[in-house]
């Protein structure tokens, strides 16, 4: 396992991937805390897992498909009822295509 160096640059990179605009004081704090947590996690390295399969989900070896049938769902009004901004019967978002 590569010992990851959790510094400001890495925290800012990960925050960008996670769509989090951290304030400056948070960056240093998270770099310190995540560094400690990741160092702890690296103890998993002591285990030889080369022949061990990964478990993504414990009981999903036969996930069933349900029939593709139309069923009642939320109304248009219900679906929009909790939106912070609504326009023309849709979710309003800032412009993202010029």
């Amino acid at each position, binding site marked *: *396992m*590569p010992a*990851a160096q*959790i510094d400001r640059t*890495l*925290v800012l*990179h*990960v*925050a960008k*991937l*996670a*769509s*989090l*605009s*951290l*304030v400056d004081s*948070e960056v240093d704090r*998270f770099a310190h*805390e*995540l560094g*400690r*947590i*990741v160092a*702890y*996690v*690296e*103890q*998993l*390295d002591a*285990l030889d*897992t080369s022949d*061990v*399969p*990964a*478990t*993504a*989900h*414990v*009981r*999903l070896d036969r*996930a*069933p498909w*349900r029939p593709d049938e139309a069923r009642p769902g*939320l109304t248009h009004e*219900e*679906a929009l*009822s*909790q*939106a*912070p*901004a609504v326009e023309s019967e849709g*979710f309003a*978002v*800032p*412009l*993202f295509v010029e």
Partner: protein
Amino acid sequence: MPIESSVLDIAGRVQRGEMSAAQATLEALGRIAALDGPIHGFLYVAGDRALADARAVDRRRARGEVLGALAGVPVAIKDAICTRGLPTTAGSKILAGYVPPYDATVVARLRRADAIVIGKTNMDEFAMGSSNENSAFGPAKNPWDLARAPGGSSGGSAAVVAARMAPCALGSDTGGSIRQPAAMTGTVGIKPTYGRVSRYGLIAFASSLDQIGPLSTDVRGAARVLGVVSGHDPCDSTSLDVPVGAFEAACDRSIRGLRIGVPKEYLAEGLDPEIKASVCSAIDDLQREGCVVKTVTLPHTQYAVGSYYVVATAEASSNLARFDGVRYGLRTSGDTRDLRAMYGATRDTGFGAEVKRRILLGTFVLSSGYYDAYYLKAQKVRTLIARDFADAFREVDVICSPTSPTAAFRLGEKVDDPLAMYLGDIFTLPASLAGLPAMSIPCAPTATGLPVGLQLVARALDEETMLAIAAAWESRSPARGMVPPQVAAQMAACSATRVPLDARSAPPVVPTDSNRPSRMS
């Protein structure tokens, strides 16, 4: 309603017409008004809506209809579980004011069984925490000592049940979030087998681990609630299509000859000696009742915290991507012409520190260059932990241990040390990673009178054997019937001055607190 009104007691009396559902609801609302101010177990009290629901149940009985298994039973719901028309925040500022347009499957099933949804309970934000201190609305307190944490993340549900404001509640458990608060508050809490209970309508934290389950004042009450909320649900693709167990009947089964495994790794150094003595004494007692006690080994236990905090945060970082200020919840605009800036500002303002920490960790372990080394590695270790249990369950029927290495700790004690907080979950995480059913029941109290939890873990889908042992232990536990002293005193004072309740009277005033989300009714 006497001080100790269990789920079965209330349901039986309402079904027989000895008490109305409205009376049971008013009693609960009265207790909430009297007790919840300092405890802060509720984020929202349903008040008028609960009373209207109760009167509807009473009208059905008056028409001669047979009432359901939870007739008139007040149930508190963890605020991570969607309730149509009642605010649901998951303890987060990003969802303050959110009112779901649908009921979670478990809530719909409770209502079908004629239970009364009395309110929404406090929790660590998005169920991330072990102390309730990560609630954006201020923590719930432990009714046994208001300076101590009720545990987390379902700490509000546990506090509410411990203080007898409701005989039962729903919580959710990802790495111990039902069992650990149950242990810290002297209540019974069950995490069912993964897939036993539908997750539809549960605000997701880590989808391969999350499971909804009951907390109750007693084992049979928890068993009944579990029976009501269990069962296949086409709305959750991980819901198992298996018969609902005979959970209540299992509480009367003989435990003679059942084999109890005691994992040697769980009773190792670092465990509070008082907790160890309390748990060992319970195990000795079960042996005297005819159980066979064996030492077992779960050799990968020490890797559970590392594996869990990679797997769970990876899933959380993906699940919480949906909170972006578009379809529901908070939006912090900043520059309204920039979509990505709106996402970033909304999430930075809306999420608390622990949620951001876990999103960052989860995003990191899934990121290019680190995925195999951390995420894949943690999933492989998860397999080893599951194999540990499979091996142990070849020799024993139930595994018995402490639920938590300490009794309730003081608020503020661990809040600045996230890693120390994570390490406290060592006994509950392994069963979560393996998807096994597990529960916490009150053991003997500590010398200072704080509750201690005894954890039982069973084979997948064998909640019944676990419940048989839990019920047998409960009937002889030194913690049996213990109520927090201040709660007992308050209730004794209430009973002394109580006037006969009229179900048609106005609902009691519920406490208000500017620190809480607005109340609807």
